[in-house]
């Protein structure tokens, strides 16, 4: 080829290459700017850039939302669905990590110009007074040009011609996508919140263990600083407030809960100035400092309060009697009340007494009862009665699952020294031998029958003879006594290999070896649904308050599935940590420890288990 021809060919090759790159980026769309035509994977796109992908999501769902939550990553903990219930609205959580009040102002303007808006919840915190107008320089934090009003062409070109690295990463991540969120897909596109199912099902009762696991996340410099951007923050809020007033939009301003170390890192003068200024502009709810600030378990890390704390905040604002809210959590501040409020805030530091909002709960685990037991694994009625008497004498009160759940979610009462008595598998002996003793002492207990073996004396399918299990009549009788609750031990995920024929024996709730995540989830969900249907039919009971894991085996995925299946309490057989129920933190009901008790358990051993 002659050099002249070559020089004609060269720009063609360049043009084609540029076009190819643009096409690839547009089709794979790692930032969700072009509607993600191939993957439709907004949890990934929002993770890459929540600002842009969320704007695009709204564009694609214009009729689905009429109310919005604005804030940085703290605001991720406000649940749109909870607000929908309070305000008869359709909320979308428009939070973006690293966002600042300039972004909120631009976003408000954009929303009001493009959507029919009923409510805006605006979250402010310490971070909003520390950062202003940052982040535009990175691909992950850049705001959509439609929001900032910049050149749409330049913006689009920039993302079309970005390095293909981002697109390649998305293509490579796709096969690694799992049910649980990973670093590359942490958003729930339908509501806009973070997918926090993993952290919201983690057992967090033991404070010492929690603080040691997350020591690094709560480490914070204690140097006291002034907040540098109070004025910019307030100016933005004023603009937002004015825009909302003109448009007739209900604006709710919330100052978010802060962990005590974070609160203490800011000077009182700064805190006062911000709050005084804010009260001049709008009424607001202040959740920053309360008894919650003193307990790290209400926080994911030093900068982020838990979803549970967000739920309590919204429940306070809308006076929801169904949700526990500590008395000192949240204050409504107006121009008139701000001075008195601030004086109180800084003169009466919050108090948090563990005995007010936590209970340590030992849980005992029994199985089969038997007169003259052949092995010590089975318990004689005399031993069981002796155990019961012993714990009553020492001031322990057997409690129910309902009371536990009530304590945690609605702030109900629990005796000072509660104990939970449980029986696994659903043996007939529980009805014949244990139930009369429970009635004699008026003691509560929970039985976890395996669904498939209720009322059976022969092993399913293979007809091997097995220890008899009580039937639904007995179950109804026990439940109606008010002393016994029925929990789940799974429908049929506690199989006994010697009695089974064929492969794929499920001894516990964990996936079989080599089972795909999809198959496993289908099997687990089917098992749960089956038992739910039967228990509704037989007992009129809506689902289960608790599930005792067969053999105590569980993993994060099973915890998440049960959580989604509205089973608030899960029990294991671990004994390495105490159970601490915490008001307002439903995750304190998860993966609870249980201590196995048998015929050989001495009174001293039992008292040791109880922690007496």
């Amino acid at each position, binding site marked *: 080829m002659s050099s002249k021809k*070559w020089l004609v060919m*060269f720009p063609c090759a360049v043009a084609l290459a540029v076009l190819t*790159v643009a096409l690839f980026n547009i089709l794979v769309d790692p930032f969700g700017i072009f509607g993600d035509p191939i993957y439709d994977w907004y949890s990934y796109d929002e993770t890459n850039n929540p600002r842009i992908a969320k704007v695009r999501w709204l564009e694609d769902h214009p009729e689905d939302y009429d109310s919005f939550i604005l804030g940085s990553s703290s605001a991720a903990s406000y649940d749109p669905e909870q607000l929908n219930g309070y305000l008869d609205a359709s909320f979308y959580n428009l939070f973006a990590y690293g966002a600042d009040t300039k972004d909120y102002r631009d976003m408000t303007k954009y929303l009001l110009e493009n959507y029919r808006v009923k409510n805006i919840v605006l979250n402010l915190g310490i971070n909003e007074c520390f950062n202003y107008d940052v982040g535009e320089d990175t691909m992950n934090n850049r705001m959509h040009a439609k929001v900032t009003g910049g050149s749409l062409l330049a913006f689009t070109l920039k*993302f079309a011609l970005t390095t293909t690295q*981002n697109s390649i990463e998305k293509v490579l991540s796709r096969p690694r996508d799992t049910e649980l969120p990973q670093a590359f897909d942490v958003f729930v596109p339908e509501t806009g919140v973070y997918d926090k199912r993993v952290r919201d099902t983690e057992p967090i009762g033991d404070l010492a263990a929690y603080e040691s696991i997350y020591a690094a996340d709560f480490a914070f410099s204690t140097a006291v600083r002034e907040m540098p951007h109070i004025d910019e923050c307030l100016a933005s809020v004023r603009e937002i407030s004015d825009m909302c007033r003109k448009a007739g939009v209900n604006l709710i301003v919330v100052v978010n809960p802060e962990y005590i170390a974070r609160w203490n890192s800011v000077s009182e003068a700064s805190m006062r100035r911000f709050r005084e200024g804010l009260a001049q502009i709008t009424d607001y709810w202040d959740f920053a400092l309360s008894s919650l600030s003193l307990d790290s378990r209400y926080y994911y890390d030093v900068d982020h309060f838990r979803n549970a704390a967000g739920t309590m905040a919204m429940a306070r604002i809308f006076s929801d009697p169904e949700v526990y809210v500590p008395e000192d959590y949240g204050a409504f501040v107006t121009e008139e009340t701000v001075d008195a409020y601030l004086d109180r805030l800084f003169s009466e530091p919050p108090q948090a007494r563990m005995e007010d909002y936590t209970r340590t709960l030992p849980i005992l685990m029994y199985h089969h009862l038997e007169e003259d037991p052949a092995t010590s694994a089975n318990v004689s009625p005399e031993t069981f009665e002796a155990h019961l008497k012993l714990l009553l004498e020492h001031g322990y009160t057997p409690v129910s699952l309902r009371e536990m759940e009530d304590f945690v979610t609605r702030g109900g009462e629990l005796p000072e020294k509660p104990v939970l008595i449980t029986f696994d598998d659903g043996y007939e002996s529980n009805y014949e031998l244990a139930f009369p003793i429970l009635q004699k002492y008026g003691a509560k207990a929970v039985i976890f029958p395996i669904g498939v073996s209720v009322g059976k004396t022969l092993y399913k399918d293979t007809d091997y003879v097995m220890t008899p299990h009580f039937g639904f009549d007995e179950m109804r009788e026990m439940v109606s006594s008010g002393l016994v609750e029925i929990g789940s031990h799974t429908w049929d995920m506690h199989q006994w290999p010697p009695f089974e024929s064929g492969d794929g024996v499920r001894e516990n709730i964990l996936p079989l070896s080599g089972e795909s995540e999809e198959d496993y989830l289908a099997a687990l969900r089917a098992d749960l649904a089956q038992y739910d249907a039967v228990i509704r039919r037989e007992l009129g009971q809506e689902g289960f308050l608790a599930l005792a894991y067969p053999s105590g085996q569980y993993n994060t995925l099973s915890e998440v599935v049960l959580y989604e299946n509205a089973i608030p309490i899960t029990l294991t057989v671990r004994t390495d940590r105490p159970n601490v129920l915490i008001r307002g933190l439903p995750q304190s009901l998860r993966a609870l420890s249980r201590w196995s008790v048998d015929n050989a358990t001495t009174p001293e051993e039992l008292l040791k288990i109880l922690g007496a």
Partner: protein
Amino acid sequence: MSIMSGVFLLFLAAAVAVYYLTPKKVRWLVLLAASAVFYLSASVKAGAYLLLTIAVTYAAARVLGALLERERAALAVPGAPAAQLRRRGLRRRRLVLAGALVLNFGTLAVLKYLDSWLASAQRLLGLTAPRLGLLLPLGISFYIFQTSGYLMDVYRGKIKPERNLLKYALFTAWFPQMVQGPINRYDKLAPQLFAGNDFDPDGVKYGLQLILWGMLKKMLIADKLAPGVNAVFADPTAYTGAITGLAAVLYSIQLYCDFSGGVDLVRGASRLFGVDMAENFNRPYFAVSIDDFWRRWHISLGEWMKDYLFYPLALSKPLNRLGKRLRGVFGRRAGQLFVPCVSTVLVFLAVGLWQGPGFGNIAYGLWNGGLMSLGMICAPACARLRAALRLRDDSKLLRIFRSLRTFALVAIGRCFSQAPTFRLGVWMLAHTVAAFGPKDPALLVSFGIGSVDWIVALTALAVVFAVSLAGERGVSVRAWLDRRHPVLQFAVVFLAVLIIVAGLSEGYVPISYVYENI
């Protein structure tokens, strides 16, 4: 602006377009304007240092030129005392030259070494004082050498000083050479810069090819290997001997692809304007000896050192006098070898120091200079050994052995200067031998280079190796490709551009050139 960026390529395209659309007479002004934009966009403050150097060397050269003129005029007068005039002239010129060079190299020394020397002094004296944190202007090591070479050429009467200050500024600040050389010579570069070149399709095509080739070497090999190499050199003690050894080898590959890739890019850029800059590399890892290596690696620096340091040293009276005296004591051969050996060691000491402060760089220089001297001393013995082993000089096996040996020696030398301290560099080499076995073979793929990056880098390296091997055998892959079907040619160019566009746009963070901060 980084030369590895879309912005630079657009800037380049615009400059080329303006250049050929401008009347020939003023085209050099376009080059000057482009150079000013390029340099000032990096740092205005650095521009001040550059201007200082331009002013000092321009003035000194003009004075030197005037002195020479006067000397010649005086000599032309019949009956003039020639010897006396020459001596006096030389003395004056020397004074001017020395003053200018002290100023020139003094600037370099202060900006480049002072902080490090102060830190060493403070360490020795146990003091703590703040670092000066002086700015190191882009390309300073290169333009200081280039202007110093120019001064010495004027001093020697080899060239006439440039009278037009702006033209001289262009020679000094010609933007393609400002990142990492090459170090150009006035007599070669200046005429091309000032000529107002015609559009030459062959040259422009070659320039574009060089740009693509250089960018690919940098992106696909150097930048892929850099994270792993940097991690190991930052803390060699964390790795087994196999990894430290591998890192030493990879560093040499990375450095070649980084440095030569960058120089290909800027030579290509220069070529787009019809300006041919000095060659800097000639497949250095095919060299059969250290001596050969330094004729193929960083050629423009080697030539500079040869012309302006080695010869002056080797021809200097004191050294030769000493050599003669030694001949009497140690024999003829020892005396003969003395001068070139000492000059070589001193030259490489300078090369080491040019790289940077610190004992590691001095060791690097001594290692190379020492090996080269050793080569001279042992040459007859080696020839005898080859004869005894009946090895023919053109034996393929011998050739491969010598290339590998040279590569190993070069790689070893680089450990001294690249490790955080000289001592750690030596430790690293010892460790490679003493604790070679990898404790955990998985470490081999997990020390900072991902598996995809390995595949990319090794594939690209295979291509570079094949092209270089062909070149070594006298086959030009470029010419070969020129004769292929247009569709294939298009495909190759398309693929190259695609890789560059895909990797180079918004969001790409270029890794600085290794020699950019020299």
